[in-house]
């Protein structure tokens, strides 16, 4: 068969169609005419809109306090409802970065992600407290959503928490997409969820899709993509975090002595150290900190530790082997990494079934290496100690000997009773390291004193185990330490040493020796001690050789330090300010007293005035007499612009002078020409920490004293521990006024004086707010309930937060409710020590005697004293007659005379509107969730109703509160009677026109009507016609009824038939649906099994 050929389409070569297609207008794809404004007004509007949009995009520039060179790790929180795959994602990401699979991922996990970026992953347990805390520190949130289920309440709650505390970056991650089988449904679901997600975050927010789980991890390619997104993420500084130092603790340790715990049966307050990277601003030692869930703490000590997870530098990159076997750095003390896990009071080492010492080709985990190192020790602590010659004082002849082994500090291994045979070796190595550390300390001190940049070589033998050598704090006895200096902090300042040295003879001798060496120095002994803080306290044998070297260095140092060392003298000497200024030996001598007698009078008065707290110094003509000398005067000329100056900058300044008008501007330029330094360089570590605190990005150990024991006992690594630094103001308590709005998803209204849990600043606490609204800018008027869809004010007692800090509030934190838990959000407006909220109070009374415009009122007050208090107050009747309280009456107690603008009635109610000021209750209850064994079961103050429900009590019923039918006796009004005489005198129009009803019948009513014969006939005919018509209609209706009946029957028949059909259809459908649901249930079961497994 021949195939049919179609005529091919020939495009038009000419005409309008050819014109349209051929010409370039469509090729460019943008027709500028199409978007050009049609009118000038429209153009104006468009331009304004564009400007507004651009303006909205702008933010107030905020200085980023995070250092660029070594920033702290970025905190990436993995948040989502339970069972959504958080742990799987965490493990997958850690594997991506560290090439290790964690068997147990708990607590923060820090990995190196690039040259300048480290990441700290933390999984957020889906408990509201954890979500709040994580929301305050996370830089990036991986918000996980179950694609097969959709959004859950936790997700929305978390987003609202984020919004209240500054919004960090959020990446959405959809999981469980493999459970959606049908491609179309999958697409639709993705689209739907994406749209909702975009609505919540912003249009175009990143949403990732993770397909199924392979080998307990998400597919590597998808994780790789995710990690690329993470690596390029940029972070905007958030105001609150940019003004507070904080730290996400990745390790916790209890330093309390075992003995104390034993004697108090574990109920004693603990000394706890927390480890972590500092973030936000610089942390000073004097800063108070708040640990959400625990409370406010005072920092006992801060120690700068070596970075456990350092950024790669050129050196480390050189050493690193590229082999995949080499495991990358991961710092996760709370998880089980490399077989080592740090618990609150022990270090757990997991050793695989077997390992051989000789096999160096197989890389060992950290724990394995520890155990192997322990086996390397060939002498015990006892032997080591016996060998060493520690002398208590430099003068002691015999070295210290140790009879019994004793441990100070906490030896974390000793708990482990499984490894008894290793116990000895362990102790030895521990002692060794301890010993080395002591040595280290000394040499460091010494170096600091000498000011030489010599580095100590034996700093750390085991760099990968940086944190461990600081397990114990070396507490040196400091007898010469004044209490004030102790307050100053534990930064090892040299003066303690020098004072220590002075306490024993040997040290003093030595100090004298040094004094000899620089006798030309004016600042005498006391002063010098600042410099020669040296090693004379208990110099061990191994250090004796250094003495000569040290003294040589001192001479050098003193020569260089011709000037006073002001920092040391001011901050770490016990000299008085006068002694510092005048030199230590010029104590009592006043310069005035040297002068001749003429000025004696003045000087004695000056001595008297010295006592005063005065700003100006006493002008002594004697001291100023030097200015009579011409030479002295001329010497000062160089300080004036007119004076001659040798250097080049003079020219510049004369230039400045040439332009006197623009002087200020030039001055400004001159001042800003030299930029301020960004950091204190060239200071030794101790002074630097004192001056600027600890910089963000450093790994520190914070020691806290008197921490509640429950914190340690009920420690659970799944819950984040945040150490939030407080500003000076935030330590105080006060009344906060906030602008608050009930969340529109929160089902109930909020009531004044009902407790509310606030998450404000670092803190979570319960307080009792009073809601109020501004009443015409006159007063703050109390509200009983929060208004709908409107902001109102709330005032409550609590810890001060800076104005403009956002917060969110909850009625309960427990996860039992299915409803939305964020009950309100808002912002702090004002801090004060009192509030000005009033509520309306109406006092009512009744008149008991009425004169013209005066009435006596009773039942408003109970005593004449009360009346006296309200004299002059304005009162009003219900009908609106205004009046004034005048004076109390004698007779009925509490009655008073009042005047009105018109005569009041006896039936009037008189009321006095007053404003009663109320103060919020001083109730502050921190949410101490971390102190509980069950972290989510915190229960604060309950409402009366809740208590009754819990206790099974009945609500007491006050008799006065019951509703009774209101009986209002009908008021009888007497008829208005106008006296006859008056009536007569009235004009007609004003006369009351009272008429009786007509008693006689009218003519129309009483006349009789008789019909004519024709009329009768006509009426009869009409009647007949009507009767016929009636009959006709009745018959017609009957017939219609019959027709209808027949039709109804027919319809019924049809319906029955249809129903039959429908039933059949339904049967088929239900059978199919049943099978489908059964299938789905099977799948669901399979999934939940899977969840349990993970």
């Amino acid at each position, binding site marked *: 068969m021949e195939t049919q050929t179609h005529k091919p389409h020939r495009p038009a070569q000419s005409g309008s169609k050819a014109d349209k297609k051929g010409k370039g207008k469509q090729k460019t794809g943008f027709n500028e005419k199409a978007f050009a404004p049609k009118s000038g007004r429209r153009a104006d509007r468009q331009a304004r809109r564009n400007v507004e949009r651009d303006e909205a995009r702008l933010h107030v520039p905020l200085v980023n306090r995070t250092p660029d060179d070594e920033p702290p790790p970025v905190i990436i929180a993995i948040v989502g409802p339970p069972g959504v795959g958080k742990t799987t994602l965490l493990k997958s990401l850690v594997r991506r970065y560290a090439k290790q699979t964690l068997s147990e991922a708990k607590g923060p996990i820090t990995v190196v992600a690039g040259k300048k970026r480290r990441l700290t992953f933390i999984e957020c347990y889906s408990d509201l407290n954890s979500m709040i805390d994580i929301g305050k520190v996370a830089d990036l949130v991986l918000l996980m959503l179950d694609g097969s289920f959709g959004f859950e309440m936790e997700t929305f709650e978390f987003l609202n928490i984020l919004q209240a505390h500054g919004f960090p970056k959020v990446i959405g991650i959809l999981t469980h997409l493999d459970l959606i089988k049908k491609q179309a449904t999958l697409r639709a679901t993705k689209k739907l969820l994406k749209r909702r997600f975009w609505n919540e975050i912003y249009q175009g927010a990143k949403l990732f899709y993770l397909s199924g789980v392979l080998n307990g991890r998400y597919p590597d390619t998808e994780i790789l993509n995710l990690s690329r997104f993470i690596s390029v993420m940029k972070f905007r500084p958030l105001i609150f975090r940019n003004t507070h130092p904080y730290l996400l603790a990745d390790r916790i340790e209890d330093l309390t002595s075992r003995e104390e715990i034993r004697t108090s049966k574990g109920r004693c307050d603990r000394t706890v150290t927390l480890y972590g990277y500092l973030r936000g601003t610089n942390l000073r030692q004097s800063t108070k900190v708040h640990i959400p869930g625990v409370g406010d703490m005072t920092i006992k000590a801060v120690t700068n530790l070596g970075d456990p997870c350092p950024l790669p530098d050129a050196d480390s990159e050189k050493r690193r082997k590229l082999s995949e076997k080499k495991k990358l750095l991961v710092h996760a003390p709370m998880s089980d990494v490399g077989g080592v896990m740090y618990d609150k009071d022990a270090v757990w080492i997991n050793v695989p079934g077997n390992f051989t010492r000789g096999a160096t080709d197989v890389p060992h985990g950290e724990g394995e290496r520890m155990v192997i190192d322990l086996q390397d020790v060939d002498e015990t602590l006892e032997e080591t100690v016996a060998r060493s010659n520690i002398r208590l004082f430099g003068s002691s002849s015999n070295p210290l000997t140790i009879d019994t082994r004793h441990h100070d500090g906490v030896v974390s291994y000793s708990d482990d009773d499984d490894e008894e045979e290793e116990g000895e070796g362990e102790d030895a190595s521990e002692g060794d390291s301890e010993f080395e550390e002591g040595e280290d300390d000394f040499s460091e001190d010494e170096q600091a004193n000498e000011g030489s940049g010599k580095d100590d070589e034996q700093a750390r033998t085991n760099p990968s185990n940086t944190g461990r050598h600081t397990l114990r704090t070396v507490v040196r006895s400091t007898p010469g330490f004044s209490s004030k200096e102790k307050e100053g902090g534990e930064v090892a300042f040299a003066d303690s040493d020098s004072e220590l040295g002075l306490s024993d003879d040997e040290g003093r001798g030595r100090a004298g020796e040094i004094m000899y060496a620089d006798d030309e120095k004016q600042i005498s002994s006391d002063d010098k001690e600042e410099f020669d803080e040296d090693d004379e306290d208990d110099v061990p044998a191994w250090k004796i050789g250094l003495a000569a070297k040290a003294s040589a260095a001192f001479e050098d140092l003193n020569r260089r330090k*011709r000037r006073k060392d*002001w920092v040391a003298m001011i901050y770490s000497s016990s000299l008085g300010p006068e002694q510092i200024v005048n030199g230590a030996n010029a104590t009592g001598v006043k310069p005035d007293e040297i002068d001749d007698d003429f000025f004696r009078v003045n000087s004695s008065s000056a001595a008297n005035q010295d006592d005063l707290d005065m700003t100006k110094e006493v002008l002594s003509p004697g001291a100023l007499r030097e200015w009579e000398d011409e030479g002295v005067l001329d010497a000062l000329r160089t300080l004036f612009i007119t004076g001659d100056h040798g250097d080049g900058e003079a020219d510049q300044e004369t230039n400045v002078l040439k332009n006197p008008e623009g002087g200020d501007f030039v001055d400004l330029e001159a001042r800003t020409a030299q930029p301020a330094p960004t950091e204190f360089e060239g200071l030794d570590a101790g002074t630097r920490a004192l001056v600027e605190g600890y910089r963000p990005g450093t790994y520190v150990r914070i020691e806290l004293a008197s921490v509640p024991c429950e914190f340690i006992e009920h420690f659970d690594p799944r819950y984040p521990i945040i150490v939030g630094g407080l500003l000076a103001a935030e330590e105080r308590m006060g009344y906060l006024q906030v602008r608050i709005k009930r969340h529109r998803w929160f089902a109930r209204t909020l009531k004044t004086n009902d407790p509310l849990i606030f998450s404000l600043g670092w803190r979570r606490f319960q307080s009792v707010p009073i809601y109020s609204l501004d009443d015409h800018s006159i007063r703050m008027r109390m509200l009983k309930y929060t208004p709908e869809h409107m902001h109102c004010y709330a005032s409550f007692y609590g810890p001060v937060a800076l104005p403009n800090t956002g917060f969110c509030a909850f009625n309960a934190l427990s996860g039992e409710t299915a409803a939305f838990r964020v009950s309100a959000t808002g912002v702090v407006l004002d801090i*004060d020590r009192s509030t000005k909220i009033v509520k309306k109070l109406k006092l009512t009374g009744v008149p008991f005697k009425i004169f013209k415009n005066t009435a006596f009122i009773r039942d408003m007050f109970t005593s004449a004293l009360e009346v006296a208090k309200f004299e002059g107050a304005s009162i009003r009747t219900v009908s609106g007659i205004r009046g004034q309280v005048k004076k109390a009456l004698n007779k009925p107690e509490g009655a008073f005379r009042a005047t009105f603008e018109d005569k009041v009635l006896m039936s009037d109610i008189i009321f006095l509107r007053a404003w009663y000021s109320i103060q919020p209750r001083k109730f502050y209850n921190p949410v101490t969730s971390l102190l509980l064994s069950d972290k989510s079961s915190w229960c604060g103050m309950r409402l009366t109703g809740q208590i009754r429900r819990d206790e099974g009590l009945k609500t007491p019923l006050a008799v006065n509160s019951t509703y009774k039918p209101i009986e209002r006796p009908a008021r009888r009004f007497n008829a208005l009677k106008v006296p006859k005489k008056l009536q007569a005198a009235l004009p007609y129009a004003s006369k009351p026109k009272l008429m009786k009803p007509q008693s006689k019948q009218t003519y129309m009513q009483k006349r009789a009507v008789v019909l004519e014969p024709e009329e009768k006939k006509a009426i009869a005919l009409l009647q007949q016609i009507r009767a016929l018509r009636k009959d006709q209609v009745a018959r017609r209706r009957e017939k219609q009824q019959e027709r209808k009946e027949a039709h109804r029957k027919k319809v019924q028949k049809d319906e029955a038939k249809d129903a039959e059909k429908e039933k059949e259809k339904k049967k088929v459908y239900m059978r199919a649906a049943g099978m489908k649901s059964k299938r789905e249930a099977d799948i669901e079961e399979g999934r939940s099994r899977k969840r349990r497994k993970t």
Partner: protein
Amino acid sequence: MESRSLVNFSGHQYLRQRLVLSILTGKHVRIDKIRSEDKDPGLRDYEVSLLRLLEKVTNGSVIEISVTGTAVLLKPGVVSGGPITHDCPLSRSIGYFLEPLIMIAPFSKKPFQLTLRGITTDDNDLSVDLIRTVTLPHLQLFGISDGLELRIKRRGAPPEGGGEVQFLCPIVKEVKTLNFVDPGKIKRIRGIAHAVRVNPQFSNRMIDASRSVLNRFIPDIYLYSDVYKGDESGKSPGYALSLLAESTTSAIHCSEAASTPGENPEDIALLATRALLSEIRHGGCVDRKHQSLVLLMMVLGSEDIGQCRMGEPSVRTIQFLRDIKIFFGSVFNITPADPTDSSNTELLYSCLGTGYVNVNRSLA
């Protein structure tokens, strides 16, 4: 929470700065052994008056003075500001009361409108002229400028006083970081010579005497003669000369001398002039009398490094630095301004600001 750090001090000295620091940080302060060894123990009337004034400008402060008056406990409240009037006792001048309040005023809830009555110029404290012409410009270094004003309504010389000043101060959210290391060269000298209830010629005599010394240095000298008459001149006779020298970089050095019975105006003028010269010789960007103010504002600055070049610290400044360490935990790094020149005694004070934010400022 409630066991808030209580700071303890002993002795009556440096009372003002300790009270100021306490109010700024909110830390409770207890000062005991106030003249406990004196034959007239306890607080003086002006100190009690200062405490009263501090109570007026704050809301919720609790001040407890022991029965003997030798111990004070201050639980500071919120600095509220607003219109306040205070009569200063005649034992100290207005400067005594104004100096601490200038440190507090920028951090109040409402702008300060403080009226003080008493002695305007005396030998112990900064006179109102110096506060107006020197202290307030120092505040401007930190961004406190709009609406900052001191009006001298009446002058009052000791012993009877009768002066009145009005101090207006705006509120700020936070103070700027100072970087002031170039002292520049002195470019002009200004001065105010005032005389009340004495021959108006006295001020001219003072001006002439002062010019006789200063004219050699610089031509740009304006010394104003400020004569108050009638009701505005207070109750006692007196005269004084206050001088200030401003550098090309707006560094200001000042001095003044007030009349004492039996001294002629020329001597007073010479005293003030020579004091100004020694102040200039002392060097730095900040006058010695204002070291504490500038250092405090540096500590209160944002969390950047502020630095300022000054002369050697005065006795009060040293104690102030120590007190700052106790209250704020801030420590200054003090290094020689010019390490190469050993004869130069000027020092560079640098510190990291605490990022102090005015919490009292209301948004409502």
